[in-house]
């Protein structure tokens, strides 16, 4: 019998798993996809928000500001790239300038500090590529950037090192309530008996809550689309540049990533299908128009890829983080829309408190490992370090992804690490192989080969992103026979 089953391996579920792995309890995390960070946690703006935007008094506001403060130490401990480069909210007309004052007030109430409004000259000196009409901006130096899937993966790796079990490719299909603090969580991979269930299922948290007979709420997907530019334009803006926000969203940003690209997006459109992460022509139009308002000269010829993410918007329009009053031992962590990434470390602490209040005995482990296994990023090293690494392990001398300078050693490591990669995209998220300007054209056959070797699999079994997404469909000459048969029939 497990003490806890966490459902959903996004940044929320993995933060909770890692936090709870400090204690002497048995935890299993179940995830329907083939890897962690396959949901909203891999497709968002990746901004560690300062916290000026959320309505004062909401969970969003409190947990945002608290989460923001936890980031530097957390990322340091887990060796996750994080930059506190600051955020700017830009006003281009009088009305927006007035709105900045409101935002400043809200920010102060939320406890964001420092926070100030800067004038035109200072703004344009900071960001020379901005729209010349930009008049003023709210300057929030505590805004930061993180790689959201790398953080999620790091949390999962470290949780796994500290004993959390991961069930991947295991969608929860039903939850049987066998009594107070006693559940049977059902998945096609098998069932797990547990005392507590933590529902961190993102877009599907409403359905999970319903399965257990806990409080009902609804989650509506709200899509945001993005375009990413080639790294050569990485200096276009230095800070996350927001337009003055509207009621429904923070608007379309022009923003650096922690890895040195620039993106524009997201737009904000309610949709019905929780699986619909397609990018549409109208959406691309919309974000280009939005992006141009902030930075008129976007290098549109140098877009390297597009993607879309879905916000999990609850009908309360706030995070829903609470022990169920109807079902003892069931804890909802739903409606985690933006700023959910920023809030995750604070949400994890809050969930720990909820468990303690519910009576779970939390004793600290003596042998908790705070760091994940050392990760080498060849592209970031100097010549001396590179020389030494290749001497220790010659696979560091074999560059597999030429755009991002990722070596064979790093790819093998990604597969062998705790909660290791099993697909081309999983390798990509862990190493950046295939994320550069050629988008895997050069390295995907080579990554496939390494996966084949490491997993002892057949090349035909290797997938892009889990079941049904096989890269190859057959061996050469194989179709010739079936084709011949068909022709005879005709």
């Amino acid at each position, binding site marked *: 019998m497990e003490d806890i089953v966490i459902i959903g391996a996004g940044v929320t579920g993995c933060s909770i798993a890692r936090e709870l792995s400090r204690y002497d309890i048995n935890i299993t995390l179940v995830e329907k996809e083939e890897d962690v960070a396959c949901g909203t946690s891999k497709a968002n703006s990746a901004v560690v928000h300062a916290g000026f935007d959320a309505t004062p008094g909401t969970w969003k506001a409190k947990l945002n500001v608290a989460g923001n403060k936890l980031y530097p130490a957390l990322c340091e401990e887990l060796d996750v790239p994080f930059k506190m480069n600051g955020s700017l909210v830009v006003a281009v007309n009088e009305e927006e300038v007035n709105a900045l004052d409101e935002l400043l007030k809200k920010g102060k109430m939320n406890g964001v500090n420092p926070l100030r409004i800067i004038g035109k000259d200072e703004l344009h000196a900071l960001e020379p590529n901005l729209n010349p009409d930009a008049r003023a901006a709210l300057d929030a130096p505590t805004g930061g950037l993180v790689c959201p899937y790398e953080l999620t993966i790091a949390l999962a790796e470290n949780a796994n090192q500290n004993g959390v079990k991961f069930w991947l490719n295991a969608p929860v299909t039903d939850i049987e309530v066998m009594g107070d603090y006693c559940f049977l969580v059902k998945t096609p991979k098998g069932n797990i008996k547990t005392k507590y269930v933590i529902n961190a299922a993102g877009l599907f948290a409403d359905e999970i809550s319903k399965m257990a007979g806990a409080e009902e709420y609804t989650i509506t997907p709200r899509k945001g689309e993005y375009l990413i530019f080639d790294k050569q334009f990485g200096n276009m803006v230095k800070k996350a540049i927001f337009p003055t926000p509207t009621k429904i969203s923070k608007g379309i940003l022009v923003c650096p990533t922690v890895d040195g690209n620039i993106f524009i997006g997201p737009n904000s459109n309610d949709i019905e299908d929780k699986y619909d992460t*397609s990018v549409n022509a109208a959406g691309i139009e919309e974000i280009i128009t939005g992006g141009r308002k902030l930075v008129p000269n976007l290098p549109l010829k*140098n877009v390297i890829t597009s993607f879309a993410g879905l916000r999990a918007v609850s009908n309360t329009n706030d995070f829903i983080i609470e022990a169920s009053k109807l079902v003892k031992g069931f804890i909802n962590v739903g409606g985690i829309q933006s700023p959910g990434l920023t809030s995750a470390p604070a949400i994890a602490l809050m969930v720990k408190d909820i468990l303690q209040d519910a009576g779970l005995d939390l004793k600290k482990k003596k042998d908790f490992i705070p760091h994940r296994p050392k990760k080498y990023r060849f592209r970031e090293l100097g010549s001396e370090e590179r020389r030494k690494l290749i001497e220790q392990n010659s696979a560091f001398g074999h560059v597999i992804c030429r755009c991002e300078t990722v070596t064979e050693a790093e790819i093998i490591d990604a597969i062998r690490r705790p909660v290791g990669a099993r697909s081309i995209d999983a390798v990509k998220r862990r190493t950046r192989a295939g994320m550069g300007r050629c988008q895997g054209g050069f390295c995907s056959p080579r990554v496939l080969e390494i996966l084949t070797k490491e997993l002892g699999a057949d090349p035909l079994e290797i997938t892009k992103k889990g079941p049904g997404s096989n890269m190859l469909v057959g061996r050469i000459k194989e179709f010739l026979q079936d084709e011949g048969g068909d022709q005879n029939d005709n």
Partner: protein
Amino acid sequence: MITKELVIIGGGPAGLAAAIEAKKHGAKDILLIERDSGLGGILQQCIHNGFGLHVFKEELTGPEYADRFIKELEEIGIEVLLDTMVIDLTEDKQIIAVSHKKGLLQIKADAVILTMGCRERTRGAINIPGYRPAGIFTAGTAQRFVNIEGYMPGKEIVILGSGDIGLIMARRFTLEGAKVKCVAEIMPYSNGLTRNIVQCLEDFDIPLLLSHTVTYIHGRNRVEGVTIAQVDDKLNPIPSTEKFISCDTLLLSVGLIPENELSKMADIQIDNVTGGPVVNQRMETSVPGIFACGNVVHVHDLVDFVTMESRLAGRGAVNYLKNKMPQQKFIKVSPGSDIRYVVPQLIDAENILDEKQNFFMRSTRPMEKARLFIESEDGLIRAKVLQHIKPSEMINIELKKEELANKDIKTLKFSLQEEGVDNGN
């Protein structure tokens, strides 16, 4: 730190020809660096024939063409490092390379020739809406899977773009028993060589849909189909013409881009149109002593021209090493009407290496017949009638040294004027 007289980065046809030519003209201490485990570059996966008509006057396959150069390279004894990737190049010709056998190498060269080839454009670069499932490949990646690894990346295929690699793969897939449903090309003309349209599509009844593009990719895990639509004269899709085609694979053959990461590290000036370095009459870049040739300079459709250009670069490098500095009095070469680009972009007429100079260029659009004008600021140098002009087929013009030298001209312009159509209004 290792020192070398001449380092060549990239062992495709460009690197091979440049190395051999440099050796023949007196360079002694040459090192050729190739990141792959064998020489020959992209030719090794081009198992079709059609290589060498100009250079050898016979039709060879890609590997056969490469082999002739590889043999010669071995015979004349040029040092080669395989499985070694250059990861850094500086303006003063310091090179850092890595390999699993030799570790990290630091090399100082007197002269360098860049022959890194090109890469394929990808989906994002052209922004196709829809999902991001498995089953979207660039044509070259698919070619590698089929011809080198022996696997089929798909069974029912739609090809976007009529670049040569896509056309070649249409035939290859068909011969393997896969079904190529169509080739959609956004332009009103094809982007491949005429011979490839005939031999790879028409001979196999594969429809070429001109003025068509893919507007949506369907399928969450693996491609399940694409929506294609006709485009208007501004290349915008016409919604009423959209139709769904089921397929498990979308191949992209939407163009190639010179691979110039290293050139940029060395602060070499890049031509915005070609995407490759600006070069002079001896294929030298804006950094003296660093030369470039082949697809890294501009994308070639015929390997024969790569060889020609690379021989020039090999000799140019030797020329530089023997301290024959050009006068650096450059004629600026520029494209005029209906010419997209001209290579080389700069000519030091007094220091042209032969009695003649080749100019490679591409037109902006197809024309049945046109007159090519070559003018300096002083007036017409030469005019020439050309037939069957296509942007996909490179135009090669030779000017005699005496047409350019001793004339004190500063500019040279190449332009096309279409003939036989009424431009009167």
